[in-house]
């Protein structure tokens, strides 16, 4: 039984934490949140130089050719730091789509540039408010060209290319689109977490390459979302831990009625419950990491489990971190809202908590029926 990351992996995480502590303090997050820049270019470059953008990309494509356990520990550190860079779009989604279904040409063209950070990729999915299902995907693909709109595309205004979910007849198909191509219009959107940009993208008869077969879209999408869900879970776990630590530290420092507020049971027990959520999420995340790294048959359940648990934990910890901080907690000056914003943003990427809850039980049921 060795249900723990290796010393090498822990060392890699420590290295990433040191790097992010230096290059990505919350002032850097605020710079993107409040400023004109859609992301932190210097940080992105630095992450590329560290090799963190190509961890699982094979060496032949300029990556480190390492495994998913390494990517999980880095994702956790990105979450702790609230890194204002397109990591989740480019590394967790675009890269995974290419590895899962990209042609040799597509891989050869984009993977090296993703690993080096020269190119940013994303995934264009939702078209309106509400759960995204095969039925709600209406953007039309015909003769290698796309027409329609996508909304709330993460990093949509800065991505060089996007994997786009489209409708081919009755099927959902995936397409790789160069976002500099004619017919593409991008409109940045105000969101609940401006430290991660989102955009609306309109496609007017835009040239697109197929990614996988015309019937494979939803299957590939589901596979990639499962993998991204586990990676995102680690991002959420990192955020949850940091929010818990902030709350704990403030409870020790802040005095009321002549005592640290952390000596009141109301605060102590709130923090204890946050610790419980964060611990359960971490343990479920490890299960997901194991499944992802070994390609275990349990991957689908493990992904939904990690996703549900980590989403609950980060939202719980970020929300109560504000409550522990009292009035200061909802000032712009304090960092609490940065974590609250991110926790609610990550809860919506890759589909909502409700959808993942439903998916988890559907998958447990399927396995149970099979057994």
């Amino acid at each position, binding site marked *: 039984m060795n249900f723990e990351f290796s010393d090498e992996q822990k060392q890699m995480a420590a290295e990433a934490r040191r790097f992010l502590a230096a290059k990505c303090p919350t002032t850097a997050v605020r710079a993107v949140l409040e400023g004109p820049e859609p992301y932190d270019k210097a940080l992105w470059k630095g992450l590329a130089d560290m090799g963190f953008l190509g961890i699982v990309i094979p060496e032949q494509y300029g990556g480190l050719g390492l495994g998913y356990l390494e990517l999980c520990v880095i994702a956790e550190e990105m979450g702790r730091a609230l890194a204002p860079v397109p990591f989740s779009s480019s590394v967790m989604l675009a890269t995974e789509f290419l590895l899962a279904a990209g042609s040799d040409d597509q891989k050869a063209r984009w993977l090296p540039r993703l690993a080096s950070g020269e190119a940013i990729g994303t995934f264009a999915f939702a078209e*309106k*408010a509400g759960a995204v299902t095969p039925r709600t995907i209406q953007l039309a693909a015909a003769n290698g060209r796309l027409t329609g709109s996508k909304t709330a595309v993460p990093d949509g205004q800065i991505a060089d290319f996007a994997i786009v979910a489209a409708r081919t007849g009755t099927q959902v198909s995936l397409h790789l689109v160069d976002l500099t191509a004619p017919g593409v219009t991008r409109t940045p959107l105000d969101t*609940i977490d401006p430290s991660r940009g989102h955009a609306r993208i309109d496609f007017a008869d835009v040239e697109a390459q197929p990614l996988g077969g015309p019937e494979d879209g939803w299957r590939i999408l589901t596979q990639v979302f499962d993998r991204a869900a586990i990676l995102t879970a680690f991002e959420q776990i990192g955020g949850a831990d940091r929010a818990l630590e902030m709350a704990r530290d403030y409870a*020790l420092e802040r005095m009321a*009625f002549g005592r*640290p507020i952390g000596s009141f049971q109301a605060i102590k027990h709130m923090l204890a419950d946050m610790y419980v959520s964060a611990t359960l999420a971490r343990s479920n995340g490890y299960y997901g990491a194991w499944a992802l790294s070994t390609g275990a048959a349990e991957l689908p359940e493990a992904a939904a489990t990690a996703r549900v648990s980590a989403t609950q934990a980060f939202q719980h910890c970020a929300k109560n971190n504000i409550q522990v901080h009292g*009035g200061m907690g909802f000032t712009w000056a304090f960092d609490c809202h940065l974590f609250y914003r991110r926790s609610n943003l990550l809860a*919506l990427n890759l589909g909502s908590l409700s959808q993942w809850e439903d998916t988890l039980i559907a998958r447990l049921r399927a396995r149970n029926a099979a057994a």
Partner: protein
Amino acid sequence: MNFDDTPQEAAFRAEVRGWIDANAPTHLLDALRTSGFGGLNLGDVDPITLSKDWQKKKAAAGWACLHWPKDYGGRGATPIERVIWGQEEGPYGALGGVFIIGHGMCGPTMMAYASEEQKRRYLPPLAAGEEIWCQLFSEPAGGSDLAGLRTRAEPAADGSGDWIINGQKIWTSGAHYSDYGILITRTDPTVPKHKGMTMFFLDMHSPGIEIRPIKQANGQSGFNEVYFTDVRIPDAQRLGAVGDGWKVSLTTLMNERLSIGSGMSTGFPELFDLCMRIETQNGLAVDDPAVRSKLATWAVRTTGLKYTGFRALSALSRGEIPGPENSIGKLVAGPTMQEIAMFAEDLQAQAGVISDPDIAAANGRFQAMLMRSPATRVEGGTDEILRNIIAERVLGLPADIRVDKDVPFNQIPTSGRA
């Protein structure tokens, strides 16, 4: 058991309705109805001006501060008449927002502690909205622990009997447009915290006052920090005896409770409306059993608050003091609003991140609710303080152990790391 007015109440309501129909600024109605979280959106016109206009009109016709004595600009109305006015004023009541603290807290405190001459000078213009008042209580070091305040008031060196104020207040609503304020200070740091405080009222235009807006997590600025540097207050503007500040402040805070039956919003009707229009993976949200099971709990909390308010109104209507039931209002509404906002986001899924009111579902109302609701759970008493109040004042449980009770204020530890 019925929802009907008594004959007298019905007559009063008819009179009110008649006057409002004839005089209300109907052109603002839509704007007032759609004004969501934090402040009024009334286009180019300054909301303060519009608020003062409406208040002046009400005062002229005898509809300002209904529960105040006529001599001080009120109407001498009964509590239930005041509630009926509120029900009939409806959306126009939002124009009274800037006066709530002055009318609800400062006025009553002046009535209890100011001289007759001062009352006749200050209360009528306060009632008529000609002068706006604010309340300077909270401090960085004293949030839930209001009595932890440190702003000093010391006798002027010139022997004039005036007081010199130095220190800082925080969370002061409307400080930047207020003409006067009531201020609680520490006049003796060598005695236990509750014993060394003194209350004053002062001109907010006095030299030495600096006002800085506080930017909230949601980007809005409803509150201010107020800095005092050698601000001079005549002793005649002291409210209550030196050292009695805590007692005076309780009068003020008790009046906070009198706004009954207003029925705090939980956001449920808005959520239900969204569920009638948005789809989950199982179809229309309101038909999704998973959605229904969540909605049901929020529905009964919302109606529960509403009818708890009605029970309090019934007591008022019988001329009784309402029971403690109302203390649950914010404790239920605050967290419920946050849960509802998070679930409404969940329903919108990926597109729920969009906060632009022109693009987001329900005009971005839920994104605004998400970012505003954490403040609701803290302002005017955190959830934890409210549970303590219910446990102690309603259920009669013992107060928390007070380590700072009998300690001289200047010897109470000020840092947890110390």
